[in-house]
Every structure is written in C-alpha cells, then in structure tokens.
C-alpha cells in the first residue's frame, strides 16, 4: 500500500517539473489527441474504412467530406482516422518488444563483457551498416507483407539501438563503487544487473522509447508508401503511395496523410525531448 502511495508521489513530483517544459507538454497533448482519435475512430469517422465510392472522386474538402475524397471516392477524413490506428498500434507494439529485448541483451552484454559483449557489438554493428529499409524490404518480400510480419520486422530493426544505449550505460554504471559493493555483499549477478543497475538506466530507456516509436512510425509509413505494407488495412503510408499518381488532380491527397504522420512523429519527438529535459536537466548555473 505504502509503495503505491510512494509511486503516486513520485509521479506528482515528475509532473510538476514536466509541466514547465513547454515542448514536452505540447508533444504530449498532440500525442494524446491522436491516441483518442485512433481509439475512437469508429465514433469520429463518417464512413467505414476503405469505402470506395463514398463520394465522387477528387472532391475538395467540404462539409460532407471534411478532407475531401481520393481517386476512388474514399472519404479522406475517415481513412485518416482509421490509418491512425495502424500507425499507433504497429509502432507501439514494436517499441515494447524491441525495448524488452534490447534492454535484456544490452544489460547482459554490458555487465559480462568478453565474448558475449563482442558478439552483441558485432551484431548491432551489422544493423548499423545495413540500411533499415533494405532489410525490411527483403524480409517482407521473403516472408510476406502482413501486419504481424511488419511488427516483427520493425522490432528487429529497433532493438539494436536500444541495446547499444543500455549496454553503454551499464558499462559505466558497472564501475561505480555501489555496484562493486553489491558484488561484495554477495548479491547474485541477476539481482545486480536487474535490481541495482538497470533501474538506474530507466530514464534513458524511457526517453529512447519515445524516440524509437517515432522512428518506427517513419519506417512503417515508408514501407506502406513503397507498397510493401499490409494492403488490407488503411495506412497513411499507403494513402501516400496511392497519391503518387495524382499530384495534379489533388494535392490534399498528399497533404493530409503526410501531415498526420508528421504530427504524430513530431509529438513523439517533442515528448521525448521534454522527458529528456526533465531527467537530464541542463542546469543554467
């Protein structure tokens, strides 16, 4: 019971500081708006997803079609709302899985060093030199472009960065006397890594999650844009792919899905910046 109260207190303190950081707050607000829109998409949308012929093609924004229609008469506004779901869901699941894997591997590699560490470093270096989209495209081409695969692929692309970050932190924390003292006290390796060291990297991990999700969204959109996303679902990237042929007829087919991606990614980056400022304040002496 006391623990819960302690945590609520911690959160209140955090919020007090975070509130002052305008950038972070703006990011959080935009993000929350999109999350709400995505969750309640069926409520807000005026047409079910992928309804061709909801209106005439290439209509300008009007009262009936808030953002206009595309080449097949689909209502852009509704498409946008349903697209938000995919964008947020895919990226979120990918971030969670890649972070769990990344933290685990990075912590083990950082703590034990030696062969385990070298192995991890070489593997993450591989992911650094292979252009992400290339790898994603090859994997999707071989294993198929459905939503599960895409989540897996994005997770595979995201974990190396996280593990490198965690590894670097653990490497330096490992040298701190309190870690040596914990060893001297007789604590098990597992306890030392995950009870003493990793909690001290939490702030880095959380900031990283926000930024990783931003990247994940950009990758997912790019994949859909290139035609390798899950074509059975509405996706902003796919909408932009579709719009590629129709620049002359309708610029809003390009504008709105893109702005959507931009705003969500921006909000995540802003939120991450805000978190970073709270956790690592740049003190103006």
């Amino acid at each position, binding site marked *: 019971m006391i623990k819960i109260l302690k945590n609520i207190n911690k959160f209140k303190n955090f919020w007090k500081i975070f509130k002052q950081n305008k950038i972070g707050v703006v990011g959080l607000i935009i993000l929350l708006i999109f999350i709400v829109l995505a969750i309640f998409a069926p409520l807000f949308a005026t047409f079910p997803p992928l309804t061709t012929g909801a209106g005439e093609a290439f209509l300008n924004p009007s009262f009936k079609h808030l953002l206009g229609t595309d080449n097949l008469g689909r209502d852009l506004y509704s498409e946008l709302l349903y697209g938000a779901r995919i964008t947020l869901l895919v990226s979120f699941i990918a971030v969670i899985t890649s972070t769990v894997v990344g933290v685990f591997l990075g912590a083990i590699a950082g703590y034990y060093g030696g062969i385990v560490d070298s192995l991890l470093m070489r593997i993450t270096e591989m992911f650094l030199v292979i252009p*992400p989209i*290339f790898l994603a495209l090859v994997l999707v081409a071989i294993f198929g472009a459905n939503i599960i695969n895409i989540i897996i692929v994005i997770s595979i692309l995201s974990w190396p960065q996280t593990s490198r970050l965690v590894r670097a932190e653990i490497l330096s924390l490992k040298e701190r006397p309190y870690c040596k003292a914990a060893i001297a006290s007789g604590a098990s390796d597992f306890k030392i890594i995950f009870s003493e060291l990793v909690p001290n990297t939490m702030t880095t991990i959380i900031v990283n999650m926000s930024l990783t999700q931003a990247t994940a969204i950009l990758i997912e959109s790019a994949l859909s844009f290139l*035609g390798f996303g899950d074509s059975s679902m509405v996706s902003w990237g796919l909408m932009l792919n579709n719009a590629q042929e129709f620049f002359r007829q309708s610029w809003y087919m390009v504008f709105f899905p893109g702005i959507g991606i*931009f705003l969500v990614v*921006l909000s995540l980056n802003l939120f991450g910046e805000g978190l970073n400022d709270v956790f690592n304040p740049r003190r103006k002496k």
Partner: protein
Amino acid sequence: MNYNYLAKRTLQIIPVVLGILVMSFLMIQLAPGDVVFMFIGESGADPEFEAQIRKRLGLDKSVLEQLILYLKGVLTGDLGKSFVMNESVSKIIWDRALPTIILMSSSIIFGAVFGILIGVYAATKPYSLRDNVSMVIALFLYSLPNFWLGQMLIIVFSVNWGILPVSGMESMILGDKSFLMDRLTHLLLPTITLGSTLGAFVMRFVRASMIEALGQDYILTAKSKGLSDGKIFFKHALKNALLPVVTYIGLRLGYMLSGAVVIESVFGWPGLGLLMLDALFERDYPLIMGLFIVISLSVTIITFIIDILYTYLDPRIRLK
C-alpha cells in the same frame, strides 16, 4: 600512423562482413517454399535447367556446405544471374550504381554543410532565441517523413510553379538548357529532400558538440590568457567540436541509404533504390540478395574508411 588501431578495426569488420553474408544466406534458406524457385522464378522452367540450378547451388548437399559454396561465390564477385533481366547481377548493379552515388554524395554534402553552419550558429549563443529556433527547425526536419517532403516539394515547385522537373535524372529533350544545368535542376529537389534529414541530425550533433567543447576546462585556460571570445570559439572550441562530426556522418550512412530508396521512388531517380523496388516486384531474388549484399558491404567499407580517417584527424589517437 597508428597501425595497432588499424589492425584492430580491420579485425572487427571481418565478422560484420561475414555476418551480413551469413544473414543473407539464412534469409534465403528460411524463406517459405523451395529455394530453387527463388533462382529460377516461379513460372515453370524446364526440369533440366532446374536440376542444373539445384546442382550449382549444391541443394543436394548439407546446409553448411551450401553456405561455404555461397560464401565462395559472393567473395569472388559472383552474385548469380537475374533470370528476369537475363544478365549477371553484378553487371546490373554496376550499371545502375552511378545515379545513387551522385544522389548520396550531393545529399551528404548538402546535409553536412547545412547542418554544420546552423549548428555552429546555434552554439554561438546557447539557450538563446537563435538556438531554440534552430533546434526546433531540426526537430521538425527529422520528424518529417522524407517521402512526403519530396512529394510536397514536387507539388509546389514542379506541378504548381513548374520551375523544376517532376522526376527522373534528365530530361528527354534538352531544349535550350545546357547539359549540366539540366542535370542540376533534376538533382536539386532530391538532394534537398534526402539531405535535410541528415542536416537536421548534424545540426543537433554539432550544436551539442560545440556546447560541450565550450564547457571544457581548457576554455577557461584560454580565457585566462586573455583571448577574445571569437578566437576562443573558433580556434579552441570548434576544432574539438567538429572532429567527431566526421564519424557521426559515417554512422548515418546506413539511414541515408535507407532514405535514398524511398526518395528514388518519389522522384523516379534511376538508381539502386529504384532497382531494388523493381526487383522486389518481380520477385527477382538473385538481384534482391545481390543488391542487399552490395549495399550493406559498401556501407561497411565506407564506414571503415571514415573510421581510419578519423584516427588520422584526432591527435589523441594518431599519436599514442
């Protein structure tokens, strides 16, 4: 010349190179369906040819032996033959490499220059208006999906205003423009699109690097000698701050090539990215894997060269 470091780095990239090759081998092996069809296409080929391919790939042997065969082949430059285009994969890639090289080079130069200039400018007065505005600009730039940026630029400059070409690397008919001008106008928008993301990251990095350099102890020493602020900034801090930028750009090469694929698609730029997309649509696996290997290894080697270059630039590593 620090030969120890050179040797160490060389030893380090060998596993990476091997890893990439093994990875591509595994991807082929793990694909659903019979491996053969990846190399002869799904439409039926005559059984004799199929048997030939099976033999050549060593599909009747153990996986380990197949791997060795594969490695041998790749390391001697044999990436197989594209059955769709009926030419050796190596040749196809070689022919299409130049446009991508041009695009990457111009984008890197643009992004680096742009990023360094603004990053240094922001660092002249940290936490001031110019700094905050610059950082917000950077934030916006790297939050943009670059393909969308490309599309919007095309709409504004090519479709609406018509001052720049819509796509491709060159015009069909030159008209009254010179050859060089034509190429440059085609190169402009793709460069800006691809380079702006790099510019945003470089901006942030340079700014942070400068601020860190300015906070170092030796800056106090410089001040205590009576040096002017400008001299301290440009002679003492800048050199220290810009040193790691070289490595940083190397780190972003993979991501840039990633972006290049998408940009080539948006602008119809006939480079390796577009080639990859075509290959994917055609299910031309030899070409797909060949491109994967070539691109990955290129980045590896270039990063390696940049690393070596850095050791030459930083006196702390150069002389030890």
